[in-house]
């Protein structure tokens, strides 16, 4: 027998057996797929946000700029002039509060006589990133300064949020993953039971073990592929929305903005979901065949 032809035929026939098993599974297939999709969607969301926060965090930590908010009784230009004389300050940009309010009102419907709540703002840039911390401490203590907006502060918040998301998302994913493993194992068990006679005949006629187990494994792979493909759709939509929102929000801190959304990021997440899905269904198949398939 030609070996490569034989292997091709075996592969094709195993796929055919797997498709028959899936057909026989009926609605129970969709129970596995729906729960696995939920697991992968949650896990994918956690990954997505973590990756995004990592990029933002990286950008923030590279920044050498911070914003200073002044009280209304301070002469902004005078303050800016004096600030520029401090060591390590490279540039000071004045954002007049009236101009800022005018720009703000363009995007929202606000009554003309509504008082301007915005403070005067200075965008300050230091010579080197290592001087950022000490400069901020100095500027904080200057009279007339209401608040500062700077990367380390935001970065700390982002890191805390990222850790919280990772932990809670991971716990939820693991719990749902365990449920999916059990349900997959039960579904495969039903298939084994329905094919009991066939499996016994194959076994006694000298068919290799992997031809008997192979279709069951392929069934698990099918679940993983379908679930990952369904899960990635809302993740893709969410990623474009979240990234745009992040760009708008981070704009005041990162004048250069964030990198453009890359489709390759979502492809990476899809491949990870495929692998995770196959690990989950593979574990379920393994448990079921070990317990119920006596070869």
């Amino acid at each position: 027998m030609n070996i490569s032809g034989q292997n091709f035929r075996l592969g094709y026939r195993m796929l055919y057996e797997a498709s028959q098993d899936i057909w026989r599974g009926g609605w129970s297939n969709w129970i596995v797929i729906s729960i696995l999709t939920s697991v992968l969607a949650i896990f994918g969301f956690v990954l997505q946000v973590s990756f995004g926060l990592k990029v933002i965090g990286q950008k923030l930590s590279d920044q050498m700029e911070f914003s200073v908010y002044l009280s209304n009784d301070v002469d902004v230009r005078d303050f800016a002039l004096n600030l520029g004389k401090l060591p390590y300050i490279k540039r000071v940009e004045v954002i007049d509060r009236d101009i800022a309010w005018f720009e703000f009102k363009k995007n929202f419907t606000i009554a003309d006589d509504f008082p301007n709540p915005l403070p005067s703002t200075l965008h300050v840039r230091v010579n080197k990133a290592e001087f950022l911390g000490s400069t901020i401490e100095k500027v904080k203590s200057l009279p007339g300064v209401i608040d500062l907006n700077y990367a380390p502060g935001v970065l700390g918040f982002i890191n805390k949020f990222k850790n919280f998301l990772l932990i809670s998302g991971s716990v939820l994913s693991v719990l749902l993953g365990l449920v999916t493993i059990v349900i997959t194992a039960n579904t495969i068990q039903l298939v084994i039971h329905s094919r009991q006679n066939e499996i016994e005949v194959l076994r006694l006629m000298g068919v290799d073990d992997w031809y008997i187990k192979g279709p069951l494994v392929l069934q698990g792979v099918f679940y993983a592929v379908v679930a990952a493909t369904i899960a990635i759709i809302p993740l893709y939509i969410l990623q474009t929305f979240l990234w745009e929102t992040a760009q708008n929000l981070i704009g005041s801190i990162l004048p250069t903005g964030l990198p453009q959304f890359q489709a390759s990021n979502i492809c990476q997440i899809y491949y990870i979901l495929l692998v995770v899905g196959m690990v989950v269904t593979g574990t379920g198949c393994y448990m079921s065949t070990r317990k119920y398939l006596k070869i």
Partner: protein
Amino acid sequence: MIQFINVTKIYGELRALDNISFSIASGEMVFLVGPSGAGKSTILRLLYREEKPTSGQVFVSNVDVSRLPNGQTPILRRRMGIIFQDFKLLPNKTSFENIAYPLFAIGMDNAEIKRRVHGALKVVSLSNKANDFPKNLSGGEQQRVGTARAIVQGPSLIIADEPTGNLDPNTSMEIFQLLEKINQKGTTVLIATHNQQMVDQMKKRVITMSNGKITSDIKSGSYHAV
């Protein structure tokens, strides 16, 4: 072809086989007879390695099957054909598909499968029943399909465990004559049976068992009810 050397098989407190030894040469047709619980099925299960002996050795074609790694068991079983009392046909497959099923699973090409299956159907005289499902076949016809499946891979040994247990006397005779015809082509045939009448008529070698021991082994023997 087959050799049992001091084989004992114990299930819990039950001694199913008690230090038995015998050999079967290539091309022989042998009946294994005895009452229920004598150990006949245990001998067959040891041969196709469904069980391992508690002690002793079992050889098939000079291979010690008692020490065979699990991964080699399928290869051993491809060299033998097994016929069952309850036929073990798949109800949702035709006669052709039932016979072809093991050949599909070892990757044989479709043309070769077709040739072999039609050849096997011809041997068992069921060429006109290739497209029938088991439910449309009589008991004798189903067992002939089971026999065709056992011979389709061209094995050197056929093992039949009570092949006529569910059949009437006339049909039983047909099955035994079919097995004799297969044996005449050179295949070794070992049949475990209660069917005293058929054993006496066939005048083949008869190994009689009782309580896990061999009580007689006669070349052209008859059934001795113990």
